């Protein structure tokens, strides 16, 4: 995400703990409301970002709540771009996939939610330091 290309860039940094997610959802809702997103858009984006944060907490940091998650929100006219950054050991990118909906079992739905809701989803390893990056794009519905 190049800051000079952004219309408005917001950054949140928070501890990777489940109890932090409620406040993150509310902050994200405020940002999206200010960005004139509709209620339906806000609902979808918040679901996707919350699931992505959950995945970092559970599968990248493995519950180590001393670590931080950074969330960048780039508000543009046509699209919103989201980036989640962690400092965890690099994840196996080949293993990041949703599961079959036919497989009725608890868990494993987060990636499905993210890929259904966001128009572009890209996982990568950070190059500037250890960690992982998730980039997601939301195309505005006008």
């Amino acid at each position, binding site marked *: 995400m190049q800051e000079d290309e952004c219309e408005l860039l917001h950054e949140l940094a928070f501890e990777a703990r489940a109890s932090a997610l409620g406040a993150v959802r509310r902050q994200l809702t405020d940002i999206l409301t200010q960005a004139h997103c509709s209620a339906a858009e806000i*609902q979808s984006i918040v679901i996707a970002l*919350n*699931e992505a944060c*959950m995945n970092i907490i*559970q599968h990248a940091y493995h519950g180590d709540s001393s670590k931080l998650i950074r969330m960048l929100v780039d508000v543009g006219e046509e699209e919103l771009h989201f980036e989640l950054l962690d400092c965890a050991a690099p994840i196996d990118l080949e293993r990041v996939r949703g599961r079959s909906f036919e497989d*009725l*079992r608890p*868990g494993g739905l987060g990636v*499905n939610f993210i890929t259904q809701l966001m128009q572009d989803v890209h996982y990568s390893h950070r190059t500037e330091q250890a960690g992982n990056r998730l980039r997601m794009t939301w195309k505005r519905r006008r």
Partner: protein
Amino acid sequence: MEIELQQTQGISIAALQGEVDLSSSPRARTAILACLNDGQSLLVDLSAVDYIDSSGVASLVEGFRLARDRQLTFGLLAVSEAALRVLQLARLDKVFPLYADIDAYQASR
């Protein structure tokens, strides 16, 4: 998240209120599984749920599966719009029995 348990018309109802997320869903899971492990059929009232994430959905799936194994009734009551959206994303709105209210459940029997 708050959980209120009651018995009415021969079935247990667990009413969840607020946000069912990664921090609170373990309590929902415990309450749901405790009812079913006690041999009680269960309806989970989601009318006052403003938010549910995949961990909350996972608790419902566990309840559904346990009830099926034990031949007990398990269903969802008065699902809020926010919860229904997430169930639809998980393609579970056609899997879980959904009832508008307790009368609709009784009428379905």
